[in-house]
């Protein structure tokens, strides 16, 4: 459908496109004296103003995102697939997935004071053992080596307690400072 003829002119000879540019770009009129007294120009400018104000109103309309969108996306996002096998038990072995170990480590780090956000990855490193890599966003203030050591210590202790997996290494990197609260 051809809606648009960019060269269309009003009966007074003014190009409609020029009026739109004038409005949208807040540019000066090509011929202000003519425009001020021309009924066609004035009528068109009124229509343009109404259109642009409706476009702004449309932009302000709240849009409700379907609640399941996030869920459906995350169901298709594949995390790490590996797992740590605990020492063989007489009646079947126990495995803890890397995803669970990363989640546990993240939550432990997240509860530490001055940690604004934590991301964790886990890699099975042998029977019953895991290596963790933790990235932190921290609040401005505390000693960073002290904070890293405290995070490491808590993770080693609680991962062992909660999952039975022994943490052989926790690499902690402080990657960012939290933006101040606004």
């Amino acid at each position, binding site marked *: 459908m051809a809606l648009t003829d960019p060269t269309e002119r009003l009966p007074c000879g003014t190009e409609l496109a020029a009026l739109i540019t004038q409005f949208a770009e807040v540019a000066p009129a090509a011929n202000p004296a003519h425009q001020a007294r021309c009924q066609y120009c004035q009528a068109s400018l009124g229509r343009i103003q109404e259109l642009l104000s409706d476009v702004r109103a*449309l932009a302000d309309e*709240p849009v409700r995102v379907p609640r399941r969108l996030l869920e459906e996306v995350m169901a*298709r996002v594949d995390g790490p697939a590996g797992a740590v096998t605990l020492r063989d038990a007489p009646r079947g072995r126990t495995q803890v997935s890397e995803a669970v170990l990363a989640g546990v480590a993240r939550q432990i780090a997240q509860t530490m004071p001055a940690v604004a956000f934590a991301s964790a990855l886990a890699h099975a490193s042998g029977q019953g053992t895991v290596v963790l890599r933790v990235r932190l966003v921290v609040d401005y203030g505390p000693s960073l080596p002290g904070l890293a050591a405290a995070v490491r210590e808590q993770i080693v202790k609680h991962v062992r307690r909660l999952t039975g997996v022994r943490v052989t290494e926790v690499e902690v990197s402080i990657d960012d400072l939290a933006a101040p609260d606004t």
Partner: protein
Amino acid sequence: MVVQVSDRFLVAAAQAGDPHAFEVLVGRHQVAVYRVALRMLGSGVDAEDAAQEALVQAWRGLSTFREESAFSTWLYRIVTNRCLNARVARHPTEALPDVLIDRDSDPAEVVAQSERLHALARGMLLLPAEQRAALILRELEGLSYEQIAQALGVTVPAVKGRIHRARLGLLKARATWR
């Protein structure tokens, strides 16, 4: 708490393989992705599909994201491309969600505005898709010309031309809605 964390950190963590960091990014950007799809396609169901596909594609393609552009611009690019290749709903049903009723406003004026906005959203669906995409990114999402050029993979003058033609098309079509 999460608002204090930069996209840059979350993208790096997600690129390293942390789905949780990606989930936070999705939570942060899903409204914009869905809104673009809704205005591009005119149907809530189609928009949900397109948004879901775009976000999954973003996860799978995260390793190709370089920080030449903002993460949001990169997402706009993915969702817009999906919508440019999709068909517009023949009977747009949810081009426009309900207009919020302000207690103090005149009900007749609210209805009139609702109808005008509805017609506008539908009129946008009649524009050529490239023009519609540029207009949406500019007027509804508030991107700069440079960001739109990155998102659409065209030059800034081309973006300006598309937006201009889109406005002209809407203005001319407007007479026929009444």
